[in-house]
């Protein structure tokens, strides 16, 4: 039904607003009109499904309004109205995220189609988002998969913190998927159409890290033949992910703290302040509290970065997620390698569940990829898995865990060795026939 669809028309010319409004109302839409961009931004804060914006307006023009509207509602489709003379600007609007543009005066058929397409697109996006949220509720975000209580709590936390701009520190052992969590937060935040810039602080020496983070001007140091934006500047309007934050030097810690306090950066070799608007997510596998005690990490920076903490448990603390993850990676790699393997055999899955996974999810992913590549059967079997995993599995199989299991196996072994001669077996087992009979019943042992 069109009756509950709100369309906003923004044009400085009264006659265009009236004419457009009348025509859209005849089509059954609810219409609101604004004569300038500032009033339009206020309207967009309420319930608007589509905005049709004139490109040329005094004060805030259509492109600026488009950019500002995306900060309020990134999913709002915006159609730009333009005259023949300003088609170049309309193309620029498309690059800035406009849904489409229409040239004045319009062909009625064309405008109806553009509006219907924009509304359908918005509806599909909404449906897609709802379905994704449903899936996320069930299994997690993209490659962050799990149904364990600990992971469910993390999914809940991702949903909660994504909406805000709070700095987040993700903590977890190597291979637990810290960057995936950062990506999920970015993808679910209002900054999702902005960039996500990641940098691994531990992999760069101090001077290189500084120039990577803050950028530099031409001639700032030997080899700076041209000016370059830093990662902080590149992340403007989006999210900056600082991996291995515990590894940065004391000097970079001071510089970073200043940026977080003022949200202003200075490129190396420049005194010109550059304002940035980026959300900071950091990650570490170190014990930062200990690093603070030892004087290796600044306490004030720690509190700036650590407004919200997300602790990712190691894989061996959420073994119930292993089959789900293993099957996910299995699907991923069988498709990628075009292999006709139907699944993971029970004994192989048991070995995966029992293994300790010191390399966490990354190790599991690598193990499954290897298994898919080397597999020659219809199923992934124990032999397809890396030896580190199967050694433990074999050992586990030969050594029963419980006393009952041990007893049952021993009785079976003796019976088999003595051709199921009960008297002889009872004698070897040093129990009487009646006791052996009862144990055969108890363990349901039959020839």
């Amino acid at each position, binding site marked *: 039904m069109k009756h509950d669809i709100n369309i906003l028309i923004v044009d400085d010319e009264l006659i265009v607003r009236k004419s*457009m409004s009348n025509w859209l109302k005849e089509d059954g839409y609810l219409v609101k009109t604004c004569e300038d961009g500032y009033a339009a931004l206020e309207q967009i804060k309420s319930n608007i499904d589509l905005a049709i914006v004139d490109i040329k307006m005094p004060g805030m023009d259509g492109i600026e309004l488009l950019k500002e509207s995306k900060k309020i509602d990134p999913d709002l489709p915006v159609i730009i109205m333009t005259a023949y003379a300003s088609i170049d600007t309309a193309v620029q609007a498309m690059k800035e995220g406009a849904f489409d543009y229409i040239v004045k005066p319009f062909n009625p058929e064309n405008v109806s189609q553009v509006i219907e397409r924009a509304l359908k697109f918005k509806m599909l996006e909404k449906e897609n988002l709802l379905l994704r949220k449903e899936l996320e509720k069930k299994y997690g975000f993209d490659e962050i998969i799990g149904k364990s209580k600990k992971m469910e709590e993390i999914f809940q936390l991702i949903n909660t913190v994504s909406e805000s701009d709070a700095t987040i520190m993700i903590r977890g052992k190597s291979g637990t998927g810290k960057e995936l969590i950062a990506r999920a937060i970015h993808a679910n935040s209002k900054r999702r159409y902005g960039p996500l810039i990641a940098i691994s602080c531990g992999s760069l020496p101090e001077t290189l890290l500084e120039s990577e983070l803050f950028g530099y001007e031409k001639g700032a140091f030997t080899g700076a033949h041209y000016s370059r934006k830093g990662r902080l500047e590149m992340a403007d309007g989006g999210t900056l992910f600082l991996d291995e934050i515990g590894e940065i030097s004391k000097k970079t810690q001071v510089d970073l703290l200043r940026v977080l306090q003022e949200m202003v950066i200075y490129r190396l070799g420049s005194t010109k302040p550059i304002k940035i608007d980026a959300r900071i997510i950091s990650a570490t596998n170190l014990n930062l509290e200990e690093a603070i005690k030892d004087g290796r990490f600044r306490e004030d920076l720690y509190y700036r970065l650590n407004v919200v903490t997300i602790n990712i448990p190691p894989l061996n603390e959420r073994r119930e997620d292993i089959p789900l993850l293993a099957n996910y990676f299995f699907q991923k790699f069988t498709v990628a390698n075009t292999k006709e393997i139907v699944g993971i055999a029970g004994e192989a899955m048991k070995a995966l569940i029992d293994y300790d996974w010191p390399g966490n999810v990354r190790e599991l992913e690598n193990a499954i990829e290897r298994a898919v590549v080397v597999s020659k059967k219809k199923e992934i079997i124990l032999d397809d898995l890396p030896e580190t995993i199967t050694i433990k599995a074999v050992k586990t199989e030969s050594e029963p865990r419980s006393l009952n299991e041990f007893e049952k196996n021993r009785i079976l072994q003796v019976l088999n060795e003595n051709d199921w001669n009960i008297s002889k077996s009872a004698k070897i087992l040093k129990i009487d026939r009646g006791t052996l009979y009862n144990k055969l019943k108890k363990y349901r042992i039959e020839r």
Partner: protein
Amino acid sequence: MTDRIITIIPIGEIDSSILDFISWSIEETFRITTARLPNHNLSSEIPPPLYGNRYNSTSILQHLSEKISVNALRLLAITELDLYSPIFSTLYGEAQLNGKCALVSLHRLRQEYYNLPPDQTIFLSRFHKVVIHEIAHTFGLIHCIDKNCIMYPSSNVIDIDEKSPLFCPSCNPKLLSNI
């Protein structure tokens, strides 16, 4: 007190047989009497024509609602002029939704406009559909998604020819309750 009359005002010269036809058509459809005003010539207050002699229909409607004072329920203007609006390059007609005035152009309804042999039956059928559609807008009816309904929006004469001259079962009750 407003009379239950739909007043027809020709803008420029219009063949009287066409006006007779549309009076009959309106009375049959809406069960409301029609009256006719003498020919009206547009004043210089109307913006000059654009896009090869097309006139701004929104300005004409505004001019009519301000300048023509009639004690009628609705005012229907009919013209041979080609029309555009501030947003559309061509129009068959325009109406004030839930308002008083409607305007219909005959310019693009004739077969001759498309270099085809004249056909009075086709022309009058199109004329009826456009007029009834626009007047129904003044009674608050909006576009219908039923392609057969007279309230289906038409972007070209093929659309007009393909739809029925009647209101669909969904629009008809709305019209009856609004008039």
